[in-house]
């Protein structure tokens, strides 16, 4: 039952107990079937677990959509060095609020998932890198981990299987870039959360220089269900390339914003009109950002024919990202919102690579100038060129994230930019 609203069109796999405070306690969780998947996994070999996840076609839910089973299979298949699992719970992409709900309503699901994944990749220690601002979520999670330790689920002998796995809740301190996997590893090591160059890849040398796998909360949460019910069961939803269910975080100008777990491939327009109760105040749809702030903006036409899976959104010129659907109605000032997103990236850039450090703040300054009516038409060309120069030149992809919203908004809503520029020119002339 998605929180705070429910819809009968949902397929509730990982969000089943949202809004159910009892699921938080260990007893309640066990009664609701938690730790069944882990029990089954422990009876299999680690490689078999990886195979099941691989067969299910589960893709990373953090944004990039990398196949999870494949990622796990990159880990060395021995125990000579410590392996680590990092659960990426540093949710900070604007528009995304699914991991927080997953952790605060159903912490045992995540703990089970961490143990299962640790077992599969032969890790003895799993770190849950949780966002620092989530004080209450951290408390809930920490309490659940304590309960699980007390019950012998975590620790030297995981559920009596003889395997040793530790789980630590690690709290971040406020940096978007720590959601990038190498930035997260640096932050976990107590460094500045600056992304590292790849290679070496985390599976070879990750956190503390050891093989590491970094997975998003939602990705991990799906794993126990897949192991418990089998890969085919999971493939009943979604498409061939994007199987399974996904939490869609809908925010913005809809009547019922919230998290909705839907099968991949769900039509976007139905999500807005039906599941979310339509547009607020009956206003017309103007634009949709389908995957968090770092993907291209869709106009209303594109949104009407878009199906929400990795391929469907890509066909409409955008990306599914972490499925954070931000809906904007006709009253929205696109330039202001794009400027706000650019300002976010300028604030969160780690400052290592020059194109990102200088580019994000430059783009923000230009956008603000346009917004204040001091822009020129050449500024639009400059913006497109600058953002193009920022793509593919940096260590991580934060710099690349600025280009889609800026470029797509200029191509699709050029009139709004021009209106601001012309208004400014008139004011300046008068």
């Amino acid at each position, binding site marked *: 039952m998605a*929180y*705070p*609203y*429910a819809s009968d069109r949902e397929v509730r796999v990982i969000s089943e107990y949202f*809004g159910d*405070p009892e699921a*938080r306690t260990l007893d309640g969780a066990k009664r609701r079937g938690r730790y069944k998947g882990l029990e089954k996994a422990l009876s299999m070999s680690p490689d078999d677990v990886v195979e099941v996840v691989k067969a299910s076609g589960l893709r990373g839910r953090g944004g990039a959509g990398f196949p999870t089973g494949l990622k796990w299979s990159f880990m060395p298949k021995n125990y000579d060095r*410590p392996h680590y699992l990092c659960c990426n719970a540093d949710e*900070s992409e*604007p*528009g*995304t*609020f699914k991991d*927080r709900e997953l952790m*605060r309503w159903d912490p045992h699901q995540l703990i089970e998932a961490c143990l299962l994944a640790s077992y599969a990749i032969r890790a003895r220690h799993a770190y849950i890198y949780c966002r*620092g*601002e*989530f*004080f*209450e979520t951290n*408390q*809930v*999670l*920490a*309490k659940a*981990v*304590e309960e699980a330790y007390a019950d012998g689920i975590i620790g030297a002998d995981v559920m009596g299987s003889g395997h040793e796995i*530790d*789980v*630590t*809740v*690690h*709290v971040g*301190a*406020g*940096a978007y870039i720590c959601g990038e996997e190498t930035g997260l590893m640096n932050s*976990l*090591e*107590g*460094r500045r959360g*600056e992304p590292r160059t790849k290679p070496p890849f985390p599976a070879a040398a990750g956190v*503390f220089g050891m093989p590491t796998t970094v997975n998003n909360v939602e990705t991990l949460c799906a794993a126990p269900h897949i192991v418990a019910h089998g890969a085919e069961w999971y493939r009943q939803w979604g498409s061939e390339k994007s199987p399974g269910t996904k939490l869609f975080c*809908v*925010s*913005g100008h809809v*009547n*019922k*914003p*919230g998290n909705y777990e839907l099968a991949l491939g769900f039509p976007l327009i139905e999500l807005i009109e039906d599941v979310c109760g339509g547009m*607020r*105040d009956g206003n017309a749809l103007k634009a949709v950002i389908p995957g968090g*702030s770092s993907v291209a903006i869709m106009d209303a036409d594109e949104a009407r024919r878009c199906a929400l899976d990795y391929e469907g959104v890509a066909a409409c010129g955008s990306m599914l990202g972490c499925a*954070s659907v*931000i809906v*904007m109605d006709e009253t929205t000032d696109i330039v*202001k*919102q794009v400027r*706000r997103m650019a300002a*976010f990236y300028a604030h969160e850039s*780690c400052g290592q690579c020059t194109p990102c450090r200088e580019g994000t703040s430059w783009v923000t300054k230009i956008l603000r100038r346009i917004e204040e009516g001091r822009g020129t038409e050449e500024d639009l060309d400059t913006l497109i060129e600058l953002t193009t120069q920022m793509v593919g030149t940096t260590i991580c992809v934060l710099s690349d994230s600025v280009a889609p919203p800026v470029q797509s908004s200029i191509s699709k809503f050029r009139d709004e930019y021009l209106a601001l520029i012309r208004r400014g020119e008139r004011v300046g002339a008068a």
Partner: protein
Amino acid sequence: MSGSVPYRNPGWAGNTGEFQLSEAQVRGDDFVGTRPLAGGHASGSASYPYMLEEKRPDAPLFEGPYQDRLDKILTRYPDKRAALLPVLNLAQEVRGHVSPETMDRVAELLELPRAYVRGVTTFYTMYNKRPVGRFLIQVCTNISCNLCGADDVMEAFLRYANTEPGETSAEGDFTVVEAECLAGCGFPTCVQINSRYYENVQPLDVPKICERLRARGR
């Protein structure tokens, strides 16, 4: 901005939508109840810090229960450096902000260069580099909240506190800052005051929230 569904009970993310839950049920009992200063099991000891209302910039660091918590934290990482973030968190819980003296002490404790600790501290936004008011009000003005009028909420807080963004009000009660996305996009506008999220905040709710805060402890 009123839709077909009523937006009840601003100030905390309780009875929004279609659930009838108490605050304790939404936030978890621990959060609204008392909490052990020494932390519980070592696995979660790093996740206990709060932003306390009472800020004691000269308080001793890592004494009593805090020493226990520090010891627990140090057991969870293969090296001392990794404990830097949790330890700075602890220091900030006690003192309210991370001063140069605090950084120096933490560097000594974890055997790290002082300049390095400063570099790390300034990288993260949650470490207050200078003293903040009794209530640190962080208003999310990022896109989802902004669409639903976060700028007005920010404005309302500033007007109530009679201060500038990033500054502390005259009597030292409120520090109002603009925050990046707080991951409460479904509950716009999302405001974090000290450790607690206030969700679905509308400009009209601001005086009520502030008065309630001010009444506490006075």
